[in-house]
């Protein structure tokens, strides 16, 4: 969620200054970058306190990452003083994401319900002085311990991963929340943990992964190796013990002993079905098909390259996997995946054909007439399944056409981003296939051009959220959930936070039947999980959106106490 956005901003090559689609004047010489007029500069003041004790937190770093008028990246910051107070001056007007961090505490976004929740942006109008911003920092949790081998000897460079459940595309998934590597004493320390329930695994680290060495270590008939071990001592993720981290807790002695166990291997060969040469490097990984485990790379045992496209993946446990092969082709990342089932014996002679990519062309058309600037519209293909690898996207050309080159043969959901105000996607078709409901199956090639119709007549809904006492609730998460037959379509879900006066509004809604929910505190994406949604069904406010329609609803807040957390069970 927000972290992903940060990473994107921080990656220099990806950092792109997007401009709004206005036509600039064509006057004479360019002027140097205009500094903000002194009277328009803003300031931000507030205090950082300990969320548990309420005491001021000194030396906390408050950062503002922002977009000013023309969507440009700037960053300001200040350090809190002995009374926890901070002042950031000479800030350009614009919209900012604020966060506060301090060693010993969990980083907190401004306006977020908790450390792992999305924050809400702060908008600064020219000359505005924002005061009394309060950041309540939760003291961090720490987990520390030793990793030893079957002889009780410390293991160095063991990879320790701390995990918790999160919702990813509406599915409860184990995801990494922190990691560490052991030192020569076998010690590790994972810090800055948000209080909550965690699981921990330790994995032996093969040092010579690049080399495909023939192992001449004397051994018995069975292949033995190290597989990830979950605290307190099991190779089965389902048997992992819960580690409950309370605010400020330092849990020491979380020790893991690694034991060699009988493991399985997959041997195979990467082949080019066109009979041409193979790419110089192909990376082979195994990812669990169990959605709860798909976010863990722990199922990746070892990548071994060999001549002639042969490979061997070792130290595996039985299970259902996707074998992912990734490589570069003319500068573009390619990936294919194929299911592999590992029973109780090794798999040999697995053939992995590197299918040829497709070029998908298409057109975005506007329903009705009118001259619309579609300069910011992007069409994306998101691979369906547990992994995000292999996403393709393309910007529209001036005539509304687009071309997605070298798309992997896979199943996709089609998404359209950057639509003008109140537009919605009316239809997506490829030949006879309706891609709006079912997505696109490109595993057998492309069935012609992709035809996307967008309409300027999206529906709108606005309203307020009130808590059980009848007070208007700010910062509530309002979610528009499609009716039962359409809940697989994540594009139809919309979410927005109420503003400081408890108000919300949504636009660009596809006509249809929906329910509106307002949560005080909900994990991002949880509402796409049918299991999660079931107990709340009766608290949803039905709304039917018509083409170009405007609806208004007053919603009742679902209090945080009655909302289960994914990590809580």
């Amino acid at each position, binding site marked *: 969620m927000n972290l992903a956005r940060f990473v994107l901003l921080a990656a220099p090559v990806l950092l792109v*200054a997007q401009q709004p689609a206005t036509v600039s004047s064509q006057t004479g010489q360019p002027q140097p970058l205009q500094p903000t007029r002194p009277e328009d500069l803003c300031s931000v003041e507030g205090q950082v306190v300990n969320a548990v004790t309420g005491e001021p937190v000194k030396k906390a770093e408050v950062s503002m990452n922002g977009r000013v008028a023309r969507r440009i990246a700037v960053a300001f910051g200040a350090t809190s003083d002995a009374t926890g107070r901070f002042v950031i001056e000479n800030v350009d007007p614009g919209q900012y994401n604020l966060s506060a961090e301090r060693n010993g505490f969990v980083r907190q976004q401004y306006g977020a319900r908790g450390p792992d929740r999305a924050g809400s942006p702060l908008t600064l109008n020219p000359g505005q002085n924002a005061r009394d911003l309060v950041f309540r920092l939760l003291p961090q949790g720490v987990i520390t311990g030793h990793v030893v081998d079957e002889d009780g000897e410390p293991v160095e460079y063991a990879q320790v991963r701390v995990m918790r459940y999160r919702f990813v595309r509406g599915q409860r998934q184990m995801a990494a929340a922190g990691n560490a590597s052991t030192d020569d004493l076998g010690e590790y320390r994972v810090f800055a943990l948000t209080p909550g329930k965690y699981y921990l695994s330790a994995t032996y680290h093969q040092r010579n992964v690049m080399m495909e060495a023939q192992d001449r270590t004397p051994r018995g008939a069975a292949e033995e190796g190290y597989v990830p071990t979950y605290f307190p001592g099991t190779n089965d993720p389902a048997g992992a013990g819960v580690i409950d981290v309370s605010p400020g807790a330092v849990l020491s002695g979380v020790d893991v002993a690694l034991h060699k166990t009988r493991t399985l291997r997959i041997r195979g060969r990467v082949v080019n079905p066109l009979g041409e040469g193979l790419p110089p490097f192909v990376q082979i990984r195994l990812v669990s098909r169990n959605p709860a485990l798909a976010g863990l790379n722990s199922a990746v045992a070892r990548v071994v390259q060999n*001549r002639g496209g042969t490979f061997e993946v070792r130290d595996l446990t039985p299970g259902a996997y996707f074998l992912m092969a990734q490589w570069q082709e003319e500068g573009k990342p390619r990936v294919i995946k194929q299911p592999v089932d590992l029973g109780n014996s090794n798999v040999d002679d697995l053939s992995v054909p590197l299918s040829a990519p497709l070029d998908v062309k298409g057109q975005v058309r506007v329903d009705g007439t009118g001259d619309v600037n579609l300069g910011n519209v992007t069409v994306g293909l998101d691979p369906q399944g547990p992994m995000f690898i292999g996403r393709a996207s393309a910007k529209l050309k001036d005539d509304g056409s687009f071309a997605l080159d070298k798309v992997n043969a896979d199943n996709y959901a089609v998404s359209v981003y950057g639509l003008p105000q109140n537009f919605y996607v009316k239809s997506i078709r490829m030949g006879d296939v309706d891609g709006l409901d079912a997505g696109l199956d490109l595993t057998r090639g492309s069935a012609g051009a992709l035809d996307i119709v967008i309409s300027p007549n999206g529906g709108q809904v606005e309203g307020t959220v009130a808590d059980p006492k009848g007070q208007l609730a700010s910062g509530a998460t309002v979610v528009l959930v499609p009716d039962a037959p359409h809940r697989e379509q994540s594009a139809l879900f919309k979410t927005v936070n109420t503003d400081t006066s408890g108000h919300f509004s949504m636009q660009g809604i596809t006509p249809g039947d929906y329910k509106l929910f307002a949560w005080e505190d909900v994990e991002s994406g949880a509402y796409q999980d049918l299991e999660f949604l079931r107990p709340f069904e009766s608290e949803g406010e039905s709304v039917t959106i018509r083409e170009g329609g405007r609806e208004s609803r007053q919603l009742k807040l679902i209090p945080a106490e009655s909302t289960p957390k994914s990590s809580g069970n």
Partner: protein
Amino acid sequence: MAGGFRFIWITLFTAVLDAQQPIQPPAKLESCSVEGQLVNAVTGEPVTKAEITLWGIGTARDQRYTTTTAAAGRFAVPDMEPGKYQMSARKRGYSAADYGARSAGRSGTTLSLDPGQHLSGIVWRLSPQAVITGHVLDVDGEPLPSIEVALLQHRFERSKRQLAFSGQARTNDLGEYRLFGLSPGRYYLSATANRMTQLGEYDGRQGYAPTYYPGTSDPAGAKAIELQAGTLLRGADITLTKTRTSRVRGRVVDPDSKQRVQGVGISLQRRGDESQFIFWSNFAYRIDEQGNFEIRGVVPGAYYVEAVKQGEGKTLRARQPIDVRESDVDNVVLELQPGTELKGQLRIEGRAVGDVTDEQIALQPDDSSYGGGVGATVKADGSFTLADVQPARYFLSVYGGTDVYYQKSVRLGAQDVLESGLDLTHGVSGTVEVVLSANGGQIEGVVLNANEQPEAAATVVLVPDEPRRSQTRLYKDATTDQYGRFTIMGIAPGGYKLFAWEEVEDGAYEDPDYLKAYEALGEPKNIRERSRESAQLKLIPAEAKKVPPR
């Protein structure tokens, strides 16, 4: 860092070769074996559960074997292909080492295994590790978490001795770091605050500059740390002090859009300091539609400021070196240019056209702190295409089965660029033509020590005569095997000197100042096409090692 990169380059290319060769039928040659015992160099106690790796060189370069030491530190690697090998050991609590190496980072003894040979009785003494631990603190003495601590050593990089990256650790929430598995030697430390979020302007204009142990931003003021085998150095604490940051302003010129500059990303990259392992810094910046930009929160240092625009299947780039001191930097002009395609043809004298299978072509920029190298696989007909070549000066290398070949000529259009390198600062015109020759010279020999005994693990270096000393590709080296023997192949015709050092830093001999002291000890060799020379070299003992210039 360049050394590290060079190593990775070569490793990668070797792997490419592996991937492309057809599976060969099992060798009919008699198999070999290596047996020995691993012991603690200080106590003599056996070292068990150590990971031993043998990897082939020369004709055996596809062979790799591994095993684990058992009781009494014994290891045995049966069923090996004959050929030449190097051997390394890894064990927790010890510094990683190659068998026979004089010190860390040097090549070890080459093990020559003739068909059917069983090499046994090796006693290998492994040095206990050294460890450095400490804290990174702010001026109030409070711990700073997630700080990158870099371990630095003087190394020869591009013929110059300079501080180079050789390991890293990261502080935890207690500000602690621990660097372990270290070999004896002289080290330096630096600490860098590498923020996850964008760098910006904090507390007015304050930021942490990279700081050398014990607390200076000037590499010349860095304090050396001497480590012996088994040293546990505690309390190597580094205090980070905030310094004033600057702004960098300028303009991006995009030839594609006369009116608006869109979709351009700007970044700063550290320049010229090999000890800085952080190449990219994510500074906050703003840019308007005219391409005017301003970067904020820049700590003093030497940088490249780079603009990149990606899209429509091509990448445009521009890059300028800047020096940031106390004041802001203005008027940086970044003129975006597309990367170009450079086509070429590789020919191997003595081999038919259509029979080029193993080769990889690489262009490496002559400024090592700019990571803009490009590579391509040579097709069977000898043609190759280097895509997205950015304007810069480059040297061309050919990797593959090339220890038997030498570069006979490299032409760019009508121009001979074998010695000058490729000047593509103004773009590309013409194609590259590379001729390799299999008719290089070969030298076989033996190294004798002061007692007239063959010396194993000596470093034999072939150094070209003036005026060709600046031609890095002409230097060749080898390590003697257990019989003191060495072989150097694929030597370009010309005059050379051969040296045999007991102990020499990698690349030191490319430094004219270093070599001056040894000039008289070199054995002159004149190499012609196809000449087969033999040599008996006198070892230059380690005691005669001169203190290398700083």
